[in-house]
């Protein structure tokens, strides 16, 4: 009797505590999540630092998990190439013939340019440095369009650097960890890129809307734009260097101009991070931030 009674008492004491702990856990973690959301909206740098630390930590696992995906991608491409080899060969022969004419033209212009530059005492453009990195995560989910690459501060990646792939603009670096970085894609709703219509020279802003076709805005009303016109970065605002191909005008309807990006997102397995650098060269390693540097 005594034993039975004491057991009930112990359980009677422990159970309410467990229930209260459970209730507190729900409330506590809910409040913590809410506080984190509010903090991540503020300029407090702690949140991006925690984020980059977590991503840096799990990046080796992401890299390992990526290996079968990459093998699958290569296998798919091999099969695709096998069936397309004849048509591709034919196309490349035509292109080669056309490009050979351009080679002669380029050589002639090169000589002419060198002569003219020598006459004008021309100061040449600063050299562009670049780093090629692998895409380890495509977070281009439904709400946030970004990718993670396996290069960070250790590879001299810095905030704001432009990212391209196969000659087309991908986006820019918005978070830098030690071993990984986040690239905000040009199609993200937060992305605004000053661009120029190559044929007319008219300037506009390319505004991402989380869809695969961003919009061109603030284009002069009388601009003679038509589908297929190439759009390049204008270099205004100092974030993106001028002249990077962005895409072609896809559709014009009811004043809404959409753009077909040059980059094929599904084939984005690697990315090139350009450093046009205000100073023209990368800083020596000792001047690079020791810890992760992040920005929104």
């Amino acid at each position, binding site marked *: 009797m005594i034993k039975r009674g004491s057991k009930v008492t112990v359980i009677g004491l422990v159970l309410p505590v467990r229930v209260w702990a*459970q209730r507190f*856990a*729900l409330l*506590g*973690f*809910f409040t*913590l*999540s*809410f*506080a*984190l*959301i509010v*903090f*991540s*909206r503020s300029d407090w740098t702690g*949140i991006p630092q*925690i*984020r980059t630390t*977590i*991503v840096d930590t*799990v990046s080796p*696992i*992401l890299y390992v*998990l*990526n290996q079968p*995906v990459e093998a*699958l*991608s290569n296998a*798919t*491409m091999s099969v695709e190439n096998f069936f397309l080899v004849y048509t591709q060969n034919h196309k490349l022969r035509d292109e080669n013939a056309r490009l050979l004419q351009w080679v002669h033209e380029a050589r002639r212009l090169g000589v002419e340019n060198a002569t003219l530059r020598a006459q004008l005492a021309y100061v040449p453009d600063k050299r562009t440095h670049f780093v090629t990195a692998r*895409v*380890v*995560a*495509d*977070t*281009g*989910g*439904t*709400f*946030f369009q*970004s*990718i*993670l690459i396996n290069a960070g501060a250790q590879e001299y990646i810095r905030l704001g650097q432009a990212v391209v792939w196969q000659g087309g603009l991908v986006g820019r670096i918005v*978070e830098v960890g030690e071993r990984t970085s*986040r690239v905000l894609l040009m199609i993200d*709703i*937060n992305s605004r890129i000053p661009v120029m219509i190559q044929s007319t020279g008219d300037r506009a802003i390319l505004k991402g*809307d*989380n*869809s*695969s076709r961003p919009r061109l805005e603030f284009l002069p009303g009388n601009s003679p734009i038509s589908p297929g016109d190439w759009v390049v970065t204008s270099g205004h605002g100092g974030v993106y260097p001028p002249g990077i191909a962005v895409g072609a005008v896809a559709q014009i309807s009811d004043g809404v101009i959409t753009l077909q990006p040059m980059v*094929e*997102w*599904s*084939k*984005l*397995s690697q990315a090139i991070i350009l450093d046009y650098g205000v100073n023209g060269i990368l800083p020596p390693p000792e001047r690079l931030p020791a810890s992760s540097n992040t920005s929104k």
Partner: protein
Amino acid sequence: MNTLPIILWLKRCLVNILPMCMTFLFVLIGYLPWPISFFAEIAPAFAIISLYYWLVFRPDLMPYFVVFSLGILQDAISGAPFGLYAMVYIIIRALVINQRRFIIGKPFWVFWVAFGLVASIAGLLSWCLASIYRGAVLPTDAPLIALIMTVTLFPVIAWIFLQVQRKVIGTMGA
């Protein structure tokens, strides 16, 4: 020295963290750059499937702390506001724990329909929070397709979990 109890204890620990590890892997798998056009936009929410399954059958192995941490991991990788998926997962845990008595022991279709509801609530919550955070009404077509893909894929992944549970983890209290 008898090492058997230590080995057994270690084995028990490993088995107990298996649901957490599987959900962790599913969070990462959801963000791999698959070479399929538009897949990233409509990728199924693998993590929700794992979370739901283990919350129904082994809630003791998925406490709030673990669920919160998995949400934080997803926030860090996805670039979402820090705390968004953590909050969604916390709500999902509270909801599933509260309603699991209506799911356990019922036919599979009940389990599946309940998952459809849970995934819809999670999707709607994420969409609302992301839209409020970004100050814009975000597109709904891609999340809807992702939701349909998640619910369609559920039986396959649930079957895998069922095998793991039967052969390795066991039922609650076992």
